[in-house]
């Protein structure tokens, strides 16, 4: 029913259909087969079932009425400003080995799979989101992405924000200037001035979404947790592209149900099941490889120290400012708190992980790195030191391929034996 829309967007219909055909059974075996799922997950299942249909239709409708659609790859892009400008912000898919052959024609083979994936989705013409965007916003986080955006711009207009690498006052000033410049870019693209009231609305919209996600995270402190790590990860992934207002409402409804479950002592697994925190690189949709292995072995993931997880939700923007300048500064301050491994030094991340392990009563931490991701792979030294005196830890370095699933399963299984 959406073929005509996909065709108009310039997708390769055959390749796109093949992608949807593989995703369906994977989702079924990983998600729908889970036991004791809360009823409120039905909404999120529906969103995934219609991942390239209904939401794309909404984006195209919004464009018809003159609103911007902006694509992003990173939690550093201050989306409040996009919403304040009447636009829509969507996080783009980069979680599957799709179009790697095409991507490797422009990129080196030995590169982070996330970067290869966002190129792959674009070059293989299978992502309606990137096609629906007016332009995409990149950021100078890691070297791989920074250089890749230069090339990506040849295929899709890419506006790049400069993210500093330190957290001193000079760096803040640089970032604050970048946030202001971004606001001007959005104003210029939309032809509409952004007022303080617009900003407040954008801030409140996203704050509410983050609050709902944090509420979900807090509910996972219970033993047994009322929701699986796989489902919580999915909700975090969907947060990047669903309509924020509807998403927040649905998530709060789910959390009401989860609170009820907790009161009744019900959970997704038996009380006392091993509780794991996953720390490190982002898991973009549909990258469920490691959480699936962990939870299919009888453990439960209680937290994600990740951009698709706590790094994206922890801090809110202070909405109290009066003027546009005040509010932009509050936005800049909030984003500078992000404890991404591209910062040097980055002590907050180790401390945040330590605090998560404590508040979630985790029994173990799995450090998750994507292959060729230098910042996170190197920083494991510090994050591991912050937690390994308290709980056992395991390091997993992998990519989107399936060839190492059995080896990872053995490691995780042995790790879980060690926790018992």
């Amino acid at each position, binding site marked *: 029913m959406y073929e005509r829309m996909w065709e108009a967007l310039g997708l390769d219909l055959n390749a796109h259909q093949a992608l949807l055909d593989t995703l369906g059974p994977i989702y079924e075996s990983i998600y729908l087969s889970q036991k004791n799922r809360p009823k409120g997950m039905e909404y999120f299942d529906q969103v995934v079932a219609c991942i390239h249909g209904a939401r794309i239709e909404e984006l195209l409708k919004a464009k018809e009425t003159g609103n911007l659609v902006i694509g992003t790859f990173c939690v550093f892009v201050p989306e409040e400003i996009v919403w304040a400008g009447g636009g829509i912000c969507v996080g783009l898919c980069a979680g599957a080995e799709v179009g790697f052959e095409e991507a490797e024609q422009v990129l080196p083979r030995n590169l982070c799979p996330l970067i290869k994936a966002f190129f792959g989705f674009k070059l293989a013409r299978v992502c309606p989101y990137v096609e629906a965007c007016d332009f995409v916003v990149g950021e100078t986080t890691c070297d791989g992405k920074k250089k890749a955006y230069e090339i990506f711009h040849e295929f899709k207009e890419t506006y790049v924000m400069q993210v500093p690498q330190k957290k001193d006052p000079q760096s803040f000033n640089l970032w604050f200037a970048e946030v202001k410049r971004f606001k001007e870019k959005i104003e210029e693209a939309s032809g509409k001035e952004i007022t303080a009231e617009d900003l407040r609305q954008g801030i409140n919209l996203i704050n509410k979404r983050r609050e709902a996600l944090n509420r979900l995270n807090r509910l996972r402190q219970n033993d047994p947790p009322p929701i699986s790590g796989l489902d919580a990860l999915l909700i975090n992934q969907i947060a990047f592209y669903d309509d924020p207002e509807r998403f927040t409402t649905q998530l709060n409804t789910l959390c009401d149900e989860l609170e009820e479950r907790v009161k009744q002592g019900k959970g997704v697994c038996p009380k006392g099941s091993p509780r794991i925190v996953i720390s490190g690189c982002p898991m973009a949709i549909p990258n469920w490889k490691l959480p699936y292995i962990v939870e299919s072995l009888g453990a439960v993931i209680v937290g994600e120290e990740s951009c698709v997880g706590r790094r994206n939700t922890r801090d809110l923007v202070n909405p109290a400012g009066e003027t546009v300048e005040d509010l932009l500064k509050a936005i800049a301050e909030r984003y500078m708190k992000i404890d991404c491994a591209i910062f040097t030094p980055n002590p907050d991340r180790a401390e945040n992980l330590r605090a998560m392990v404590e508040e979630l009563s985790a029994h173990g931490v799995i450090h998750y790195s994507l292959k060729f991701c230098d910042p996170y792979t190197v920083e494991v030294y510090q994050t591991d030191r912050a937690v390994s005196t308290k709980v056992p830890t395991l390091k997993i370095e992998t990519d989107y391929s399936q060839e190492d699933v059995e*080896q990872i399963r053995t490691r995780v299984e*042995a790790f879980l*034996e*060690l926790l018992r």
Partner: protein
Amino acid sequence: MRIAGLDIGSRTIKLFLLEDGRVKDFRYVETSYDPKAKIKNLLGKVEYDQLVATGYGRNLAQAHFGAETITEIRAHALGVRYLFPEARTILDIGGQDTKAIALSPEGQVIKFEMNDRCAAGTGRFLEIMAMALGVDLPGLSELALEATHAAQISSLCTVFAESEVVGLIGRGEDRRMIAKGVILSIAKRSVSLLKRVKVHPPVVFTGGVAKNKALVKALEELLKVHVLVPENPQITGALGAALSAKFL
């Protein structure tokens, strides 16, 4: 009570039988392309009350033969401590995996590390190198023990290292020195894996590769400790699986 421990590795399947806690029998066969048939055949020859499987094919044994399963890490820890009650560090090199395991004084697994997804530095690596040198596995060990020095093998990738060996042969390098170079490259890689879990003596070396005397000697020289090797190092995992029955 007869307990069968089964270790389904990438190259061989090992079976161990315990009767009332005493060693009864052990045997092993090649895994081949049809491990299920091999397991069936092996199990058909013995009688047991309980079956515990480990190794990469453990889930196969669970699905088809009603086995309980434990990981290789735990199996080796249990097997090694049965043979060497004081052991604190284990190096296990099998057909496609290398594992380093640190044990507490009580024998609990504290930490473990495994090689990456490729077969670098494993039994398979040794087989390929032996073939390139025109000897069998014991022959490779003998050659290396005769060497006065080691040829430089810098690549850890099985495929690249084979090219390197072929290159050395082409340049007329003495086979014995190449063999020692091959052994030394595995030894160095194993030591770096061991150091990641911290080496605490007594150190026990298990897995089929532990039969290689030249490698044991190279490890002892690099680690500067005595390395203990069980009489049948390749069956430690199956023994551990059988022993685990009382903990399951």
